[in-house]
């Protein structure tokens, strides 16, 4: 079985918004090139003797079955994750983590095996020497907050909007800042977004604006994985805008969590937090 699989080509197609269009284009291209496009995630029963182009959403699965990276093509078009509105927070976090896992996995492949928005913008691309496919259309420019956040996988740097995070206190998001009334018990003010981070050192930078009341309280910012992370405690002491920078080293790919906590009960005060700027530092 594994020897047979080694002979096949694999196309990794994450859950993109235009995934169905891509599948249609890939099927047409496969027919022209005398391949049979087969969705490996739906069925693992293969036609013996056929030239198979195996389709999966998981780069990990493709690499597990096909050790030769030159036989794997990763299509990374129209970065985005669209989630149903009805999800509760936990479901949402799990869905974001699962969906982003395949994006993160793209960074483990050789650069030439990843077909990102820049390479796809110029029209038909040759995924393999005998296999060329035309993208379903111009890659939409990332516009939504999630799409911009996912640029960490293609650019090594991205802006993570406050709207992607989960706020324990209602916040208004405008012009790159999230503003809220800090009044309440000691708590995690905001956390998330559980995007899967590729291995490496990643830096998160944000600014926190505190008013004359909120500046008296002790805060803590965490950045890193869910279980293991780096922390900074700070008490601003005066009103103003403060920049916080943290670096965490992901030794293995894993979900990331940013947290801002207020460590004391707050009677009165307002804070405003900027979007996070996440970038690779190695």
């Amino acid at each position: 079985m594994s020897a047979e699989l080694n002979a096949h080509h694999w196309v990794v197609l994450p859950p993109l918004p235009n995934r169905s269009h891509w599948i249609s284009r890939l099927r047409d291209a496969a027919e022209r090139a005398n391949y049979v496009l087969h969705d490996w995630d739906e069925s693992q029963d293969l036609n013996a003797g056929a030239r198979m182009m195996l389709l999966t959403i998981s780069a990990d699965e493709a690499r597990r079955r096909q050790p030769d990276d030159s036989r794997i093509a990763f299509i990374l078009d129209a970065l985005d994750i669209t989630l149903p509105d009805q999800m509760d927070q936990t479901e949402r976090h799990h869905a974001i983590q699962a969906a982003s896992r395949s994006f993160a996995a793209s960074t483990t492949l050789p650069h030439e095996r990843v077909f990102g928005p820049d390479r796809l913008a110029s029209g038909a691309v040759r995924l393999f020497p005998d296999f060329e496919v035309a993208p379903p259309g111009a890659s939409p420019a990332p516009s939504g907050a999630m799409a911009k956040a996912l640029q960490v996988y293609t650019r090594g740097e991205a802006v993570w909007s406050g709207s992607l995070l989960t706020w324990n206190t209602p916040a208004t998001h405008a012009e790159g800042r999230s503003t809220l009334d800090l009044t309440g018990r000691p708590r995690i003010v905001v956390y998330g977004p559980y995007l899967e981070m590729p291995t490496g050192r990643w830096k998160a930078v944000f600014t926190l604006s505190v008013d004359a009341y909120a500046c008296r309280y002790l805060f803590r910012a965490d950045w890193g994985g869910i279980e293991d992370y780096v922390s900074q405690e700070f008490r601003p002491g005066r009103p103003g805008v403060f920049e916080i920078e943290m670096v965490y080293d992901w030794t293995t790919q894993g979900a990331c969590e940013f947290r801002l906590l207020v460590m004391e009960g707050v009677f009165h005060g307002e804070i405003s937090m900027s979007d996070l700027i996440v970038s690779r530092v190695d």
Partner: protein
Amino acid sequence: MTSDADTDPGLRVSNLGKTYHGAHKPLFTDLNFDLGRSGRLAILGRNGQGKSTLIKMLGGVMPPSEGSISWRMTSSWPIGFGGGFQGSLSGLDNVRFLARLYGREYKETLERVDDFAELGKALRDPVKQYSSGMRARLAFGLSLAIEFDCYLIDELVAVGDARFQRKCQEGLFEERAHRAFLMASHDVQMIANYCDRALIIESGRAKIFHDIQEAVEVYTWLRAA
């Protein structure tokens, strides 16, 4: 979910503020809240922030500097507050006076006060000879005997010994569980047990907390600061 405070408030406080004569800044300003007919509101704040002043204003003992207090239910005088009695009159005469004032039958009122306050023969003495604890017991007994829709409580801990306090708590919180009350106290355990919302007054600002546990936590941090 709407509470009875939303639909039929027994008390409406609007833009209330208090500034003492000669003070450089107000004790508090712009205080707004409603209290339902079975609402239980805690009033929390460090010493000197205005809890007792607010209770006195709600009880009509002290006028507000600004804003309005609109009662749509009967309210007690501030329990724990020693004022309001005619000192040269005996406890009995004060009971008689207040029974007449509130339209209650004297004999029945006296029986209930005597049974609750446990002052015995001291009721025949002038109230000016009472200790502060005795005055508080008389005030508490009278407020329960006359029966109000809403009780104003300023530090229940000031009323008598531990046994009498338990009696007060039973009389107030258990036997009159459906009544409204506003309670100023430092006793966060009692606040957490009996109140469903809290008003915290701090540095001239007052805020309503709809989560009583959160209010207690915030107040605990304020006290520790």
